[in-house]
């Protein structure tokens, strides 16, 4: 294991946490860490994103004595109050039992894996997901039954975990979407902490046959927070996913979204908007793995980068031998709006069969000067014109979000952010 | 010249042609009309030898040969021309290079001396001028960046140059403005003579105002439900295909 975090500290920290049916997972994860390296910029996948500082933070958190702090976060303060959804608030690995009961009535079942593992696979396939399994206070499993009601979206709000410390949280959510289910999910990373803080999140989603999921991931952390999130999504026959990632806040954000196409006619749209300003770093890595043919993936990421913001996009499509009739594309468009803004982008295709349709496109550029001038000549202030045009640039992605009740809140967030950027 | 007997065909498990028979003699122009999905394009592509359709029953004879035994390229060299409904783009491949290759493939097959670049260009330029087609056509890639109308004109240019015995024009009129339609009609009218034949596959009567057919057939659910002369097309224009279909039931 890497030098960054002491194994002894990890071992003693994990003992303080709820074990129950998770004890085997935790000890496996700990032994994984013994043999694996934490990512560094020497690693191709991490060459643009240096996360060494978060390990220091993580280590620091392990030195602290356990002091459980009751959540002070009100959902009203972190966008959850604005959006009409069934919010599942997760606090130090626990959930409000009243809420669980309510959800059961609409066909959504929430449980803690420490109490009932029920053969659920807890993925520990790399050092970060192993670290997560060692230090998470619990894992939440949400099962969406075939009959689940889809009048309102399900909101997942992870209220940062203080089981071990106030510097680092580890969160894991497993979403089991049963055959034929149809559901909208909002996953909010919006509880702001005004101190250096590292959230290590793992999301596992399994989409059953013919199921459909609308998914919005919204990240609006404080400028001192770091989020590293790995999402592993499995699609069964004829499953369809419309995933949108919106990254606005945070100091350092890294998302790995892995989509596995495990059967025919599955399709996934993976869209994203990232807006980075001064001292922000946002990195999105997406892999669409087409193991089976007649599947479709489409990645569209739009970025606006101001200040000395730095963004990374790496969209991959893997088409395996025999996966005929695969359709995969990746598009990434970037606006650089200030002197020191930086983008590193790499759309990748790895194709092992000829019966495919794949394409990708990337652009880096500025706002159309003619359009800006046109607007100014109609009396619109330059910075307003800039904001309007920038907003138009990302509208395509926002319009792709099919969860109606989030529109207003999102627009407000984005408008505010763009105002800050142009200032 | 062309005789189709009791043709049955399907794609996958869907039956498309259900016992279609049709006889076309030298010098005739036949119009095959019918609603979308009636099997018009399938018929055209089967005659040209597209093997994505399964012919399950029936025969096609052409110049006393069993057509089904010939490859698509042999059919072409024997004088069958299909004007495609959606002519495909071949980026980077020069139109004149393509046409010359096609022309020489046919000449070689017929044992005629192949044509050289100079002679070909002369011939192509004359044809283009006669058909009132933009000379830039020859230097562009095959249908590359062509509008719908340009593609159809390109099909007519190819037909004229290749001098087939039977030309099947699949929805050649669809998506054309009136000027383009006139160019296409002019090409067809100049092409038709006592020794060749034309099959016009069309959804609308409009094209038939410019190209007078000898016979009009109505296709529905994979077979010909009515045949007549030019007036049948006009009648259809008024009553529509639905009425036609209903009246047959």
């Amino acid at each position, binding site marked *: 294991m890497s030098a960054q975090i002491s194994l002894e500290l990890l071992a003693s920290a994990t003992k303080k946490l709820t074990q129950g049916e998770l004890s085997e997972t935790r000890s496996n994860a700990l032994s994984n860490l013994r043999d694996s390296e934490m990512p560094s910029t020497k690693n191709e996948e991490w060459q643009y994103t240096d996360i060494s500082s978060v390990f220091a933070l993580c280590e620091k958190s392990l030195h602290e004595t356990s002091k459980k702090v009751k959540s002070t976060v009100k959902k009203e303060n972190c966008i959850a109050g604005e959006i009409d959804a069934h919010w599942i608030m997760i606090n130090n690995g626990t959930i409000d039992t009243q809420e669980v009961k309510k959800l059961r009535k609409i066909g959504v079942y929430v449980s803690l894996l420490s109490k009932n593992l029920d053969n659920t696979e807890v993925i520990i396939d790399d050092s970060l997901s192993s670290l997560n399994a060692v230090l998470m206070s619990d894992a939440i499993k949400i099962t969406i039954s075939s009959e689940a009601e889809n009048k309102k979206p399900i909101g997942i709000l992870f209220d940062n975990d203080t089981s071990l410390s106030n510097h680092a949280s580890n969160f894991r959510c497993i979403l089991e979407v049963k055959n034929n289910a149809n559901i909208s999910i909002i996953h909010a990373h919006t509880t702001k902490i005004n101190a250096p803080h590292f959230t290590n999140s793992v999301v596992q989603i399994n989409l059953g046959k013919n199921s459909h999921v609308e998914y919005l991931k919204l990240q609006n952390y404080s400028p001192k927070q770091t989020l590293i999130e790995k999402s592993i999504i499995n699609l069964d026959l004829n499953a369809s996913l419309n995933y949108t990632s919106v990254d606005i806040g945070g100091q350092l954000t890294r998302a790995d979204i892995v989509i596995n196409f495990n059967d025919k006619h599955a399709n996934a749209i993976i869209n994203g908007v990232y807006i980075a300003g001064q001292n922000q770093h946002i990195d999105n890595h997406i892999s669409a793995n087409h193991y089976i043919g007649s599947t479709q993936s489409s990645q569209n990421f739009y970025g606006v980068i101001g200040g000395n913001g730095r963004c990374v996009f790496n969209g991959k499509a893997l088409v395996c031998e025999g996966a005929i009739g695969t359709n995969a594309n990746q598009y990434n468009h970037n606006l650089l709006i200030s002197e020191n803004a930086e983008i590193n982008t*790499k759309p*990748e295709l790895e194709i092992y069969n*000829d019966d495919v*349709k794949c*394409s990708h496109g990337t*652009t880096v550029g500025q706002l159309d000067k003619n359009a800006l001038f046109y607007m100014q000549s109609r009396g619109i202030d330059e910075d307003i014109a800039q904001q309007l045009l920038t907003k138009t640039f990302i509208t395509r992605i926002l319009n792709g979000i099919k969860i109606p009740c989030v529109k207003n809140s999102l627009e407000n967030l984005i408008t505010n952010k763009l105002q800050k950027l142009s200032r | 010249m062309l005789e189709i007997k009791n043709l049955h065909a399907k794609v996958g498990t869907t039956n498309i042609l259900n016992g279609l028979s049709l006889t076309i003699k030298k010098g005739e122009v036949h119009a095959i009309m019918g609603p979308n999905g009636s099997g018009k394009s399938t018929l055209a592509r089967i005659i040209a030898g597209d093997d994505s359709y399964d012919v399950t029953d029936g025969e096609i004879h052409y110049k006393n040969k069993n057509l089904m035994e010939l490859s698509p*390229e042999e059919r072409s*060299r024997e004088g069958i021309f299909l004007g*495609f409904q959606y002519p495909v783009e071949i980026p980077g491949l020069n139109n004149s290079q393509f046409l010359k290759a096609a022309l020489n493939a046919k000449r070689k*097959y017929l044992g005629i001396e192949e044509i050289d670049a100079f002679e070909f260009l002369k011939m192509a330029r004359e044809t283009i001028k006669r058909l009132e087609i933009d000379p830039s056509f020859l230097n562009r890639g095959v249908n590359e960046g062509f509008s719908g109308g340009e593609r159809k004109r390109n099909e007519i240019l190819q037909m004229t140059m290749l001098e087939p015995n039977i030309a099947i024009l699949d929805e050649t009129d669809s998506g054309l403005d009136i000027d383009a339609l006139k160019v296409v009609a002019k090409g067809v009218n100049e092409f038709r003579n006592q020794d060749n034949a034309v099959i016009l596959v069309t959804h609308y009567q409009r094209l038939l105002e410019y190209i007078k057919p000898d016979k009009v057939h109505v296709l529905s659910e994979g077979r010909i439900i009515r045949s007549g002369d030019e007036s049948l097309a006009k009648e259809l224009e008024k009553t529509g295909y639905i009425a036609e279909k209903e009246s047959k039931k």
Partner: protein
Amino acid sequence: MSANKEEINSLIESRYKHGFVTDIESDSLPPGLNEDVIRAISARKNEPKFMLDWRLKSYKHWLKLNEPNWAHVDYTPINYQDISYFSAPKSDADRPKSLAEVDPKLLETYDKLGIPLHERARLAGVAVDAVFDSVSIATTFKKKLSDAGVIFCPFSEAVTKHPELIKKYLGSVVPYRDNFFTALNSAVFSDGSFVYIPKGVRCPMELSTYFRINAANTGQFERTLIIADEGSHVSYLEGCTAPMRDENQLHAAVVELVALKDAEIKYSTVQNWYPGDEEGKGGIYNFVTKRGDCRGANSKISWTQVETGSAITWKYPSCILRGDNSIGEFYSVAVTNNRQQADTGTKMIHIGNNTKSTIVSKGISAGRAQNAYRGLVRVMPQANNARNHTQCDSLLIGGDCGAHTFPYIEAKNPSAIIEHEATTSKISEDQLFYCKQRGIEEEDAVNMIVNGFCKDVFKKLPMEFAVEAQALLNVSLEGAVG
């Protein structure tokens, strides 16, 4: 319409037409690499001390490096102690002064390759610096070039005759420490070409070198250095072909281009080395470092390559756009068939203001081959108004091959405009049916479609090269049907 598998396989097979071994005795060093070998190479070439020192420095650095493994290629490890680092034709002591003195067997070899040296030189007005194994044998049209002040000579000759130019420019674009193979090349390079175009001179003819690899176990380490002084212009052609051989042969060349203010260099390559047999046995390992430095304002460097040969190609002809308004171009066709592997592309490093780069890459993969495009477009913070356009297309023929795209884009200046587009496709059944309906044979149709796919690159090649390239493409893919 889909042709069945056996049909495809039988059609894809097309044997290497240039496979034969010329029976000329080689005067080679025993296999192995150490300081003594390097001293021996340098001594044989009567090199000045600065050259030997440079070689030894490179060698010492090489010892510290590991072979790179990031490319999308797979091969059995190379034992660098099994390679002989020097081989020259026996008649080295008495070098021919004219073509008439050239070993007739060698001329015959060129004949078989379709390169009738004197004929081609005379008819096409091309000066040919033929490299047979590691030592240059004949250089023609010297007079015409020297009248124009152009220096075009074997690298070893330049080392002794123009040491000031070598000292100034050697390693200035590709430092010996750049990578594993450049360090190796810098230590042991045998020979190559040197070109200097003086200020304001437009080189009166296209310069050309034909490389060949012969003699078993002889790694070939070419070194090419082209300097275009202010306001000059040169077009350089490189073409290669090698005899059939069962053991893998390593080729690790280094090409350095320097374009000063207002100068332009056009560098074209047709590479047709032995690709190995249908099972992937034999074939050349082509691990080449090519880089051009647009050092002066308004300079331009253009790379065009048609890569049809080699078992493994690892090659990224690059441009460093240092001068303001400088232009870099990369046009590439890479064809892989059977078990060939190619990992090729370019790097465009924008440093000066108003720099522009264009990348057009066409990869064609058939059989069980793997073909990867790997490219980097980097806009440095000081590079205002940089422009890049990249078009990167792959064509797959058959279900067992692979095509991969790894484009890295790094923009650190907000005035940059970068566009990257890539597509992957196969020859569509619609296209084939359309051609067949017009009477064209399937094989001809495939050739026509593939040539059309590559047209944007072919039209950048000098005329006679373009013809050769198209012919090569057809041979390489003979009958490969989608």
